[in-house]
């Protein structure tokens, strides 16, 4: 689980890939900034409340939305950096050719899963938008907004798994 921020054999000279890498790292950066903002917001709320000045009524709700956005948005970045947890005890003992086949099959399965969830989350979001439902807590807004991070996440995940599959199929080593 290295903190390299990029795969080992990435072709850095290619402008398109560089932009793609920037998008991936940016999703991780958004999560990082949200976690920092979360710490400051909650701490400020505790300080103001215990000092008897005021309480920030929307702090809990906003923190929850920050968690949703961070967890979904940064997931593609972790696939890009190969950091999601894998159980590779069986695969490690296989010869290189068989490992490559498993990598392609594994990426294809993940691609199908992500495409299905991207389609389902888009359908669910459009359905919510059509019904015109609202989230009624301290903040009030259309509830389809909550599905946006999931939609973005699974679209980016689908693209990333497609890229990985192509890299493995073309024999570019670790995608």
């Amino acid at each position, binding site marked *: 689980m290295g903190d390299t921020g990029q795969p080992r054999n990435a072709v850095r000279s290619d402008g398109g890939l560089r932009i793609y890498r920037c998008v991936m790292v940016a999703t991780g950066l958004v999560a990082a900034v949200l976690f920092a903002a979360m710490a400051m917001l909650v701490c400020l709320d505790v300080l103001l409340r215990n000092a008897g000045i005021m309480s920030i009524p929307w702090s809990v709700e906003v923190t929850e939305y920050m968690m949703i956005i961070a*967890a979904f948005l940064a997931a593609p970045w972790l696939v890009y950096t190969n950091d999601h*947890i894998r159980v590779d005890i069986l695969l490690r003992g296989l010869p290189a050719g068989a490992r490559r086949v498993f990598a392609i099959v*594994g990426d294809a399965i993940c691609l199908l899963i992500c495409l299905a969830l991207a389609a389902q989350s888009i359908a669910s979001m459009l359905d919510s938008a059509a019904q015109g439902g609202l989230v009624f807590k301290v903040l009030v807004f259309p509830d389809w907004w909550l599905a946006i991070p999931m939609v973005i996440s699974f679209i980016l995940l689908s693209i990333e798994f497609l890229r990985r599959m192509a890299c493995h199929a073309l024999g570019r080593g670790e995608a």
Partner: protein
Amino acid sequence: MDWHSALTILLGVLFVLMLAGVPVAFAFLGVNLLGAWFFMGGEAGLGQLVRNSIQSVGSFSLTPIPLFILMGEVLFHTGVAYRAINAVERLIARVPGRLSIVSVIGGTVFATLSGSTIANTAMMGGTLLPEMLKRGYKPSIAMGPIMAVGGIAMLIPPSALAVMLGSLAGISISRLLIGGIIPGLLLAVFFVGYVVARCKLDPSLAPADSPGQGVSGWKKWKPFVCDVLPLFGIFVAVVGSMLVGWASPTESAAIGAVASTVATVCYRAFTWRAFYKALMETARISVIILFVLIASTTFSQLLSFSGATTGLLQLIGQYGLSPLWLVLGMLAILLLLGCVIDQVSMMMITLPFFMPLASAAGIDPVWLGVMLLLAMEIGLLTPPFGLLCMVMQSVAPNHIRLTQIYGSVLPFIIIELLVLGLILLLPWLAVGLPQLMA
């Protein structure tokens, strides 16, 4: 479909996908898609799956996961934690296996400031291991304590995984965090005892320091007073704010994260570059955990909808097992699972069964929670999927083989099993402090 077939299909597909190298989170998502279609009403089930996934991480009680991790990462990347370890090293002199003891005590100190087992092991492995090997320590006595003490961060508050366990299992998070203190310290004491005894019996394991090495008087104590004691202020802020009721356990994590950052500023160690690294690492570790959580939340619903949870609980109920046997069974399952899968997945697969069983048998949830944490902590060390063994491999010199890493941690796994047995026989070790707190 009967519950046996449903359970076999759900767990079978999950394990096949995991063993085929599909990332754990995506293996859960794949099973969820199939299960939602078959057991939750087709199209409607898939819609429910999307809503579950969004709601799973939108919970305030989960926010300590990134915040406790941030605490440790900030201290780690700014170098403040290294200064604390160096200060501890100066205090310990003339004992067999001195640097191994430093790693245990330093790691325990860092565990009170960090909620991340990975940060703990990476830091101790990166700093103390090269020094130990240079001074002629055998790898077996150099690496084992570092990995073992890494797991203590999972027990001693702040602990990101304890928060997750408490949140998922419906156990009071503050009581669970406080309940982990005595077992965590007990482990540290046993680890030190083992290192001293082993090095006394076989002095070749850890060569003694050359005479005249080290300092005395104020020079010896100054780094401890300046670099370690003030850091305990962070621990006091986290645990104290919870105990006096100024902040909830969730909010205390934010206080800890901000206090750690303020501490690095006070030590003039804060740099934007280090802070960026700490934040990115926090995002990386936290999202790994949170995304497995997103992916596996629907899994427990599927077990329930398919009748697998009720069926299995009824089957176990027929045997009329005593609470002690039930707990032993749960711990055995976790210890076995710990050899092959990660801690978050272990929780997601087992808690839907364990918690109703424990509740029906009248088992104290804090006592059970602390033991589950310890059993999962052992899973961090057991081959072949011991996460901390892999972290050690990534920071150890190239000539160290994975088998040496596994061998070095074995005595410490036995010690942890011993402590687990002690808590099983003496529940006060886990529930004593939370009861005093109440």
